[in-house]
């Protein structure tokens, strides 16, 4: 097990290195000069050159790449070109908001998908099943930029129950979490249903029924724990993508997370901030996948990592 963990941790290095390199090349080669965007058009050429030198942007790309990489290896992600604040500090300030939203979306997704998926599996081809599958289709088809404002109009404007946007108490989290969690809920509902359908056909379930166990106990204790393995895989993968992919939801709900920060950094060609954001996002993505793998062994004793 320990060997496996060390190997996986070591394997993360080339992945992160690859991501860092690709992002560095893309952001430096797309047109758009950070100096233009920082100084505006009215700056003198000499001031432009001065600033370019100050920020080290006059150096060859290879030099910039190596120095930023070495710095990043020491935990220093540099300073934002625009605000001059340390990149790491800027990102760390945003992470709680993104994690809060991601966890909120996960809870929403699980709260919807588990009951719907279970009912759909237990009452296959019934009205419940068809209803659940219709929800799944709807959930996956609705884009966030449409669902978000729709929820705002209903719950904030018409009913006046929840705030429109911003971050504060739990009431501020509900709408963005539903917006972000709906698509995931749709995927998970289908996943729970199909996985549970498969498991309930197994011999040990038939045996449990023959023993006269209550159906509720059979599903919760015997069937669900096995049916959850593929669901957890999806959950792990989605957690990573929710961390990075909540840009639209964050923008709609004025949620100060890392997704919005990344977009702002790209728009202003803030190279160190873009690289920092992508590095942190990819690192968390890889780590979460790794933790998901470890979690398998915990929930399924048949899985052993050697």
């Amino acid at each position, binding site marked *: 097990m320990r060997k496996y963990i060390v190997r996986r941790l070591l394997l993360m290095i080339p992945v992160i290195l690859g991501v860092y390199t690709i992002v560095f090349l893309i952001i430096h080669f797309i047109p758009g000069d950070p100096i233009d965007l920082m100084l505006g058009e009215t*700056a003198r050429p000499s001031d432009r050159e001065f600033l370019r030198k100050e920020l080290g942007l006059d150096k060859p790309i290879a030099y910039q790449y190596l120095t930023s990489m070495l710095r990043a290896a020491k935990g220093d992600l540099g300073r934002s070109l625009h605000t001059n604040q340390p990149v790491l500090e800027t990102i760390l300030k945003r992470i709680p908001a993104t994690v809060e939203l991601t966890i909120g979306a996960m809870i929403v997704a699980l709260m919807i998908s588990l009951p719907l998926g279970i009912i759909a599996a237990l009452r296959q081809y019934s009205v419940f099943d068809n209803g659940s599958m219709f929800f799944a289709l709807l959930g996956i088809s609705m884009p966030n930029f449409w669902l978000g404002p729709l929820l705002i109009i209903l719950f904030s404007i018409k009913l006046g129950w929840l705030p429109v946007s911003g971050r504060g108490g739990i*009431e*501020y989290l509900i709408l963005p979490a539903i917006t972000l969690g709906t698509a995931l809920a749709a995927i998970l509902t289908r996943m729970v249903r199909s996985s549970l359908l498969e498991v309930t056909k197994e011999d040990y379930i038939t045996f449990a029924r023959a023993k006269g166990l209550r159906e509720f106990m059979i599903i919760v204790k015997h069937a669900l724990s096995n049916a959850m393995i593929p669901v957890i895989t999806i959950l792990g993968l989605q957690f990573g993508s929710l961390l990075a992919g909540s840009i639209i939801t964050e923008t709609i709900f004025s949620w100060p997370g890392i997704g919005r920060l990344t977009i702002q950094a790209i728009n202003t*060609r803030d190279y160190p901030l873009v690289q920092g954001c992508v590095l942190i996002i990819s690192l968390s993505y890889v780590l979460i996948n790794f933790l998901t793998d470890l979690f398998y062994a915990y929930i399924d004793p048949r899985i052993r990592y050697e």
Partner: protein
Amino acid sequence: MYQKKRKIRLILLVFLFCSLLFSCSSKEAKKGSVLIVGVESNPTNLDPRLAIDIASLHVIDIVYNKLVKKDKHSNIIPDLATHWENPDDLTYIFHLKKGVKFHDGTELKAEDVKYTFDSIRDPSLKSPKRSSTAPLKEIQIIDKYTISFTLKEPYAPFLSNMIQAIVPKHIGMDKKKNLSLGPVGTGPFKLKEWVYDERLEFVSNKEHFQGKPRLDRIIYKVIPDQTVRLLELEKGSIHLIQNSVSPDMLPRLKINPKLKVIKEVGINYSYIGFNLEDRILKNKKVRQAIAHAINKQDIIDNILKGLAIPATGLLSPSHWAYESRVKEFPYNPEKAKRLLDEAGYRDPDGDGPEPRFKIMYKTSQNQIRKRIAEIIQEQLKGIGIEMVMRNYEWGTFFSDIRSGNFQMYTLTWVGITDPDIYYYIFYSSSIPPKGANRGRYSNKSLDRLIEQGRYTLDPIKRKKIYSEIQKIIAEDLPYISLWYLKNVAVMRKEIKGFKLYPGEQFYSLKDVYIK
């Protein structure tokens, strides 16, 4: 029976949980003396020597005062200065108001003014405004409240370069303090708290030299999404938004009994720029034909919903140097076709699908700009020109424009104050990165006039020079003038005292009250 009861209990529980969740309804914006303004982005830098983005400038508008400022006609008027003298062409002496205090209680003195401009001139500050101090030779403090600026040579736009917020020297020199994050000004409001990317909270400055503001607090709430900003306004959780209102939303806002909409012509000038080194576009007749083919009023009425007025040149009708008697190119597709024929671009197949020539039009990803481009594309098709539309993300688009990689593009000039902007945009050698002559326009007689405009201090003579310049540009057509955008503010009915300024400034917030 037992199972039924359990089901009912379960349903009741779920219902109770949901109602608990949803009962945490948001508190509406408190009435009274707190104004909540919806802003589209987070400021990037609150140091007025460094800030150039609109979000930061809106903070500076209420936290700082400037040495001088401009009125609605772009005339320079005193702000922190009581008045100024011009003993000779090279010297400007400013007399400061006495008893003006910074938010930390220290008094504003001439040394703060000197420090502000000296630090902008210092390359180590990396101020984007450094070029505006280039005409300065030296700054001298005459006494505690009097300061003199000496120029290297006569420079008529100098006063507009003095529209600069003044920072306190003792804070600026203090290495532990950071004006970019914690501004200390003399303005009517003090920054109390800045929650990055969420909100900025200001409290009134009771010591303000123009009297205590009528509001106790102002909150700028950052709401990047345009639709959501309007929904917040409808709900009442924000009180006011200015500009960046989609024209399509205006009818809906106008009929809302809780809201009021105010509009006024601004100074933001939209145009189509030509690359004059282009084989086709260097022909003036082609440019004139394109101008005649575009139905500006149609676009203003249908896409911009009346939120603009047709433009004739860079300077808006409210500007002191505005010249109305310039050549115009009214919508006339037949004349446009004739001009193209005369230019040698005959339609190869009459009304058939074959175009006279193809041309590329670049724009940003702004939705309205894209829709306008589609209309122009259709209008040009009507005279036999095939327009290929390309829209790019801002950084890419701007990079192409600066490097001359375009045939036609559209953009907007914002915040035009002094007519010396002509030097920057149309002077032969002002090609990027030196200036913004992106279309590589060159006209020796215009260059001479622009130079004269720079060095003529007599306002009447200067106005004549700029009249001539406006006529030449309108005739030569390096730009097609499209329109001056109107500034729009939408606010709750109970908000009183808010005024629009041509440059979108928030100066009037100090007079706003809630009734």
